[in-house]
């Protein structure tokens, strides 16, 4: 389905405008209800006993002393939950991955430091922690596997490589055989992750009077997790509900289904009391999903002008100890998006999905793209250097031209989803970005400074994002007799301003004040279906559903108003919640609240129609949409300390239509700074025994204000997506995408060593090694 070009913001009342968020007032006054703020009377507190060994046979878990500790109600080990299946995949996954799923509590083996071994339930969280220390875990250490290049055994006869994924198109061998030059790089994206400011939390409650099991503290994908729990716990869908409150950041890792979520639910049922678990920061850093860690060997075949004839990439994805809810999706996304904005003759990617004895990994904001863009743009820099071409010119020669949009990237492998890049003009956005950044001036200035002895350089990267994955999402909107509008969605809010975006879309379509709209999300008891907030799909998909529903409700309201005001519906308009004749303030009018009162159950005017001023509708999407961007940086290196400092950072981003430019800019800036973290500071490192070395904020270094450059954002709305009526393309993940890539390129130039950066993060230690 192809939709016409939607209006720009200046032709709209609230959609597209930088209005303040409706979420903020409770959050700045201390009234946000995060997981830790949820408590029920008579609740128990859970503490997890975690493996101190990276890989060992679990000989015995002795909880005798812990059970005897005053205030302890129960202690469970793997044997107590042996009837519970491992944490299941969210989507149907290859059968081959199933044996690698994580059990709720370890049995037989522990596979990473942090692997849950036992759960203590006590009257008080301090007591639970005391008792956890009394649980004795006897193990026989096993060889520890820490490098994804190496292959080991997960179980007898089962390798640590559950699957290899392949994506290819074109004749790669011919491309390399006829190449003018071949460029080969070995690159590593470091292990880091989302690390939201709020740690995870889960509160389980079983209401025996209604036979309903509740999970509070849910986030990101409550509806999807509910379906997984229905399968795992064998409950009917009406018998389990998830509740999302305020969420202290998500970034892909929070809100996935983890062992602790299942444990609080089981305990709530079996122990007959609500059970609360709040993760501490050390646990978070060793138990919540890691991400990104991949080793790539990438090769490009180019002709004399630098055109990309072919690319091959073989990479090793360091998954950690188990396969979690996403299966092998990050490997698939890495290779499907690796070619990005460029037109390439032939392509062959082989992704080795490898297990190691580290914290399991999954998606972090722009999963597979931060990594893939690092690889691709490093490659482009290397080709430019090899051929003596300007970096920008080389990219320009290879970008998919605007005239070829929509552009399809199709893979040979059956089941490998094609990419149909929906709309855009990549070279045009690059030009806009360069002009805005004053690239030529900045280049000249950097050259002058280098000549004067400074180490400064510029980096450039182009990227494509994917957003708005279907298949469908629905919404329900109702107006109460006071005229207050409630929008019920199956979306989720991880702090991105979801409620405001939905309120703006609803307000525009319906004709009401956005600030007075109540938006419901993350509640499986209010709407049966939902896709949540991931892969930058909430605004596109749920927003599409809200728009459909609001338009349907508008038509309904106008029909009733036409009857009540004795005026044809097409002569009426709704503004600020009041229906009146178009173009005039005079004449008869009626508020939406009054209409709601007049169509209450039993009302005369219904004439057999269903009562209430409400509507429900769906939005379907059969293809994703592809926002894209360019990122530019100016970086200074201190040769003595090895510290790289980002002086300037810019993101140009084509979003189709921005629902709220202020929030979009916030997403892009916030993402960019997370990208800086992954480029320069953040890394989960391990010693040779698999002992994690980044277990506090003193070792896992996230950017503070001091390390944070101002980020200049250029929002482009030149190519609204034809795949949804509002022209939207997602905005949640673009900011982070190319940061690793451009920081690497800028450091290379700063130190005058093309290709020097092959590994992220570029910590001062690594940079000093490079400079030595």
């Amino acid at each position, binding site marked *: 389905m192809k939709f016409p070009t939607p209006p720009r913001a200046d032709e709209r009342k609230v959609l597209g405008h930088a209005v303040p968020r409706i979420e903020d007032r409770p959050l700045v006054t*201390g009234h946000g209800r995060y997981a830790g*703020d949820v408590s029920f009377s008579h609740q128990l507190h859970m503490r997890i006993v975690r493996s101190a060994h990276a890989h060992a046979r679990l000989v015995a878990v002795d909880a005798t002393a812990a059970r005897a500790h005053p205030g302890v109600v129960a202690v469970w080990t793997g044997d107590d939950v042996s009837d519970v299946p491992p944490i299941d995949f969210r989507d149907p996954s290859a059968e081959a991955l199933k044996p690698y799923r994580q059990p709720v509590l370890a049995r037989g083996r522990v596979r990473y430091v942090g692997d849950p071994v036992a759960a203590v339930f006590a009257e*008080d969280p301090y007591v639970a922690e005391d008792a956890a220390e009394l649980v004795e875990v006897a193990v026989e250490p096993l060889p520890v596997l820490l490098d994804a290049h190496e292959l080991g055994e997960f179980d007898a006869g089962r390798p640590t490589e559950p699957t290899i994924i392949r994506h290819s198109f074109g004749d790669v061998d011919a491309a390399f055989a006829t190449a003018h030059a071949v460029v080969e790089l070995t690159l590593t994206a470091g292990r880091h992750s989302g690390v939201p400011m709020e740690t995870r939390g889960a509160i389980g409650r079983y209401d025996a009077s209604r036979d309903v099991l509740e999970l509070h503290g849910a986030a990101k994908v409550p509806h999807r997790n509910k379906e997984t729990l229905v399968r795992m716990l064998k409950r009917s869908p009406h018998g389990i509900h998830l509740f999302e409150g305020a969420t202290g*950041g998500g970034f892909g890792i929070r809100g996935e289904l983890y062992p602790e979520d299942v444990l609080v639910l089981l305990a709530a049922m079996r122990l007959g009391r609500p059970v609360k678990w*709040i993760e501490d920061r050390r646990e978070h850093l060793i138990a919540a999903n890691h991400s990104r860690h991949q080793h790539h060997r990438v090769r490009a075949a180019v002709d004399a002008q630098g055109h990309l004839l072919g690319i091959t990439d073989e990479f090793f994805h360091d998954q950690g100890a188990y396969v979690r809810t996403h299966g092998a999706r990050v490997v698939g996304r890495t290779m499907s998006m690796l070619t990005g904005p460029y037109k390439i003759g032939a392509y062959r990617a082989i992704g080795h999905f490898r297990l190691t004895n580290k914290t399991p990994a999954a998606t972090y904001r722009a999963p597979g793209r931060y990594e893939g863009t690092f690889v691709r743009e490093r490659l482009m820099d290397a080709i430019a250097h090899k051929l003596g071409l300007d970096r920008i010119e080389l990219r320009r020669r290879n970008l998919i031209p605007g005239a070829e949009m929509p552009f399809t990237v199709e893979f040979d492998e059956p089941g490998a989803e094609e990419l149909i890049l929906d709309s855009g003009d990549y070279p045009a956005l690059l030009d806009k970005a360069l002009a805005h950044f004053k690239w030529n001036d900045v280049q000249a200035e950097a050259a002058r400074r280098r000549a004067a002895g400074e180490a400064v350089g510029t980096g450039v990267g182009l990227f494509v994002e994917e957003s708005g994955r279907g298949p469908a999402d629905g919404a329900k909107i109702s107006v109460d007799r006071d005229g207050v509008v409630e929008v019920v969605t199956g979306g989720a809010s*991880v702090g991105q301003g979801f409620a405001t975006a939905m309120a703006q879309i609803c307000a525009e379509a319906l004709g009401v004040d956005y600030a007075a709209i109540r938006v419901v999300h993350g509640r499986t008891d209010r709407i049966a279906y939902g896709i949540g907030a991931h892969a930058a799909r909430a605004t596109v998909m749920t927003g599409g559903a809200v728009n459909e529903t609001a338009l349907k409700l508008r038509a309904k309201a106008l029909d009733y108003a036409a009857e009540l005001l004795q005026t044809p519906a097409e002569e009426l308009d709704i503004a600020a919640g009041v229906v009146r004749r178009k173009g005039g303030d005079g004449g008869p009018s009626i508020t939406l609240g009054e209409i709601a009162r007049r169509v209450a159950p039993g009302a005369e005017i219904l004439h057999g129609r269903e009562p209430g001023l409400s509507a429900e509708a769906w939005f379907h999407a059969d293809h994703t949409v592809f926002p894209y961007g360019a990122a530019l940086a100016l970086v200074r290196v201190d040769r003595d300390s090895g510290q790289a400092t980002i002086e300037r950072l810019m993101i140009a981003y084509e979003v189709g239509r921005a629902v709220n430019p202020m929030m979009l*800019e916030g997403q892009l800036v916030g993402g960019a700074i997370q990208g800086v973290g992954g480029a320069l500071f953040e890394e989960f490192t391990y010693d040779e025994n698999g002992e994690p070395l980044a277990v506090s904020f003193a070792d896992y270094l996230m950017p503070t*204000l001091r390390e944070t450059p101002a980020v200049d954002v250029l929002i482009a709305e030149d190519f609204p997506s034809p795949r949804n009526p509002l022209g939207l393309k997602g905005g949640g993940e673009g900011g982070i995408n190319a940061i690793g890539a451009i920081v690497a390129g800028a450091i290379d130039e700063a130190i005058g060593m093309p290709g020097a950066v092959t590994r992220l993060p570029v910590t001062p230690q690594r940079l000093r090694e490079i400079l030595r």
Partner: protein
Amino acid sequence: MTEKIDITLTINGRDHAIRVEPRKTLVDAIRDDCGQTGTHIGCEHGICGACTIILDDEAVRSCLMFAVQAQGKKIRTVEGLANGDKLHPLQESFIKHHGLQCGFCTPGFLMLAVNMLERQPDIGDDEILEVLSSNLCRCTGYQNIIAAVRAAAADMRRAGAPA
């Protein structure tokens, strides 16, 4: 379990008589025993600053203190910033400048900034940056936090009445 003792915490001008173990952290007591959950826990080792409160006249990390140490002192938390329906200028400014996304670090930043502007109404831009560098935010990239605080500082100076 150690013996619990009776203490009184004075939070935003209200006394809370509570019974806690001597080892209970101040932030846990504020949240769990006094029900003031606006103060958040981000790391429990004094780095992120999400639990920042104002104790007498100083911004402190309430995860690094025991509740018993706060007895007899005036505790201010985010719940005490607004005056009825009227938000503190910093709260207004955070909303206006989009200085928050998930909002989890916001109470800590607000208390840090409120204390900073109360102690030093004429604080310069560079010093503001220095002070605010002590707390972590994962959503905003700090850009709008600093904008919000600088704008509020200017507004409050113009109004001539630091809160």
